[in-house]
């Protein structure tokens, strides 16, 4: 086994450490720690946002799922990007102007309720931890494919680096680290893709032989867009669209823009960046179907990106490219996990310890250890679907309250709490019941596909619950708010005006 991938990981960690350390030297105040003093420029900030948004799910998982189940996998990146569009349309500017550090800060300021704040904090922590777990699983998967070590080495390694960098540098250094990691990730997929496509075009064959294959066999109609299931597609897209709004690490990023207008411009740049990345990653998925059909098995498919370069590009070149992909994968694990840990540590330290820098550091360590423990005792599922599940939960639990909090003055604390509880309980129940059914052999696999009638409908509703949990949660928020005799907080109008009125320009 070549040592190149390990060298690549080492270089990535070294660069991350250096950039983190550089950030440490210039982050001194509390606000540097939490929001990088809100002076991060749009392009830097956009790179950083993209750097933390592109996780193991799309770096490894997307091409794995394209290989495994076909074109339906493309809905995930499309939904992630469209989710960012919704963030731009409804919350980017207003949330920046709210002046809050975290989602719970926003909810408390909007609703003037400590109870609503606490419920939000709990949900933010659950969502964040659930999101870190697939990153750690991805690290375990990659490390075993490049070195003869047990899987836990990868998870523990990522956890140690993340908690150290976050605790040392806070948000300011994380901004630089993530901006750097976005470009690592993009390069680590785009460069190998160029060589892989050249190889497919015959560049490395003496006779210029072009790979021949039967399009109808590699890209069958049923695995393509022609075979899509209407309910599952609509429900999944709804969850991905709304879920982004409820992710803790996405929202905290807007607080680092100088003003509402720049928060919007930043989001547009982010959309361009992540779209380019998703197209590159999708292309690798298409290539994987052509050249690596033997890897189309659950658990193995997610490693296909790592093996493509060595399969197609001969000699040292292929190995170097493979090492680059491994470094990019680790950048994905690090970028997303550290962004999440910053957001979560901000919540924990403000809720429990009054928001000091010291408590932020300890919270960062704690917020890495908990998902690590969870990752070590659970079995990795498909990476992209694990991440998708988090979106479903976030969309059901938090997104209705955030959106209504920005746009509906009638929202009350009781309505918000009721909606968050209903949304999260319904969604969690559905997902747990669905996985219990799968475990009991009633899965949606080959046997489940033929099931019909009531059982089939119930199974579909449980597997993709967003289409009914989000409306129910939203309805709960609205109905309870309207019935609430206390009405909305008295300063609602002033707070909403602050959200929507543009900042004064300095002249």
């Amino acid at each position, binding site marked *: 086994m070549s040592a190149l991938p390990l060298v690549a990981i080492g270089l990535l960690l070294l660069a991350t450490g250096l950039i983190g350390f550089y950030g440490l030297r210039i982050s001194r105040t509390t606000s540097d720690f939490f929001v990088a003093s809100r002076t991060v420029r749009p392009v830097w900030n956009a790179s950083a946002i993209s750097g933390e948004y592109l996780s193991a799910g799309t770096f490894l998982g997307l091409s794995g799922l394209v290989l495994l189940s076909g074109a339906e996998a493309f809905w995930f990146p499309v939904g992630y990007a469209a989710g960012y569009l919704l963030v731009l*349309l409804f919350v980017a500017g207003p949330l920046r102007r709210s002046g809050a550090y975290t989602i719970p800060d926003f909810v408390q300021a909007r609703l003037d309720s400590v109870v609503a704040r606490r419920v939000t904090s709990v949900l933010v922590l659950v969502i964040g931890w659930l999101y870190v777990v697939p990153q750690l699983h991805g690290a375990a998967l990659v490390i075993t494919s490049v070195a003869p070590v047990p899987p836990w080495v990868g998870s523990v390694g990522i956890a140690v680096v993340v908690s150290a960098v976050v605790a040392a540098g806070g948000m300011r250094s994380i901004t630089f680290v993530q901006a750097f990691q976005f470009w690592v990730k993009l390069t680590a997929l785009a460069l190998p893709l160029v060589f892989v496509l050249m190889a497919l075009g015959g560049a490395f064959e003496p006779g210029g032989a072009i790979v021949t294959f039967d399009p109808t066999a590699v890209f069958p109609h049923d695995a393509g867009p022609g075979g899509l299931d209407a309910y599952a597609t609509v429900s999944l897209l709804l969850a991905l669209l709304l879920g982004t709004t409820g992710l803790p690490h996405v929202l905290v990023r807007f607080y680092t823009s100088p003003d509402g207008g720049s928060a919007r411009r930043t989001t547009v740049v982010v959309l361009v960046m992540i779209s380019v990345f998703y197209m590159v990653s999708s292309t690798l998925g298409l290539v994987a179907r052509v050249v690596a059909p033997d890897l189309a098995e659950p658990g193995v498919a997610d490693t296909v990106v790592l093996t493509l370069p060595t399969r197609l590009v001969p000699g040292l070149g292929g190995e170097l490219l493979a090492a680059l992909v491994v470094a990019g994968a680790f950048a994905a694990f690090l970028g997303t996990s550290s962004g999440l840990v910053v957001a979560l540590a901000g919540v924990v330290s403000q809720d429990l310890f009054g928001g000091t820098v010291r408590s932020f550091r300890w919270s960062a360590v704690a917020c890495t250890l908990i998902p690590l423990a969870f990752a070590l005792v659970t079995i990795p599922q498909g990476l992209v679907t694990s991440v998708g599940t988090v979106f479903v939960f976030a969309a059901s639990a938090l997104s209705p309250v955030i959106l209504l909090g920005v746009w509906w003055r009638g929202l009350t604390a009781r309505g918000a709490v009721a909606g968050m509880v209903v949304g999260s309980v319904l969604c969690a129940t559905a997902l747990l019941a669905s996985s219990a059914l799968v475990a009991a052999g009633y899965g949606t696999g080959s046997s489940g596909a033929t099931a019909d009638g009531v059982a089939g409908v119930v199974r579909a509703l449980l597997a993709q619950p967003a289409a009914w949990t989000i409306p129910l949660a939203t309805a709960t928020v609205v109905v309870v708010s309207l019935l609430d005799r206390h009405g909305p907080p008295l300063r609602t109008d002033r707070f909403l005006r602050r959200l929507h009125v543009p900042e004064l320009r300095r002249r």
Partner: protein
Amino acid sequence: MSGPDPSSAPTPPAGRVRVRSTDARPDAGPPSGTPRGRPEEADDAAAHYTRGLVRAQLRLGLACVVSFLAVVALLTVTMSAVPALDAVVILGVPLPWLVHAYGFYPVIVAFAVVFAVAAARNERRYRALAEGSAGPAEAGPDEAVPDEAGAP
């Protein structure tokens, strides 16, 4: 204007902004129902323009999301329900697969750009109205959030 107490934010030293958590902390700002400064009725015009701005931004957002979903639905139905497209194979990949893999991102980015431009225009219009009617001092009663005062 909301919660945060502008006078409590220490004047930032040059080059670095110390931002305290603003309205979010329970101990910061006045308790609810005791608005600071003048009552809102004092600047009816500004309040009116603000409501107009909020409605305009919400309308814009909803219009964008509805038309975006319409385009997505159209694209989805086209690529999944027109069997003839399967016969169109480009570089070995059937057209529906290509549409699914690449076709949605240009749509998303186009809507993002349109929205960002239109939202900024709404805000410029609001500024012009508010400043024209009430003078610069009244224009954005509260937009001058303390933490922005020192941001470049």
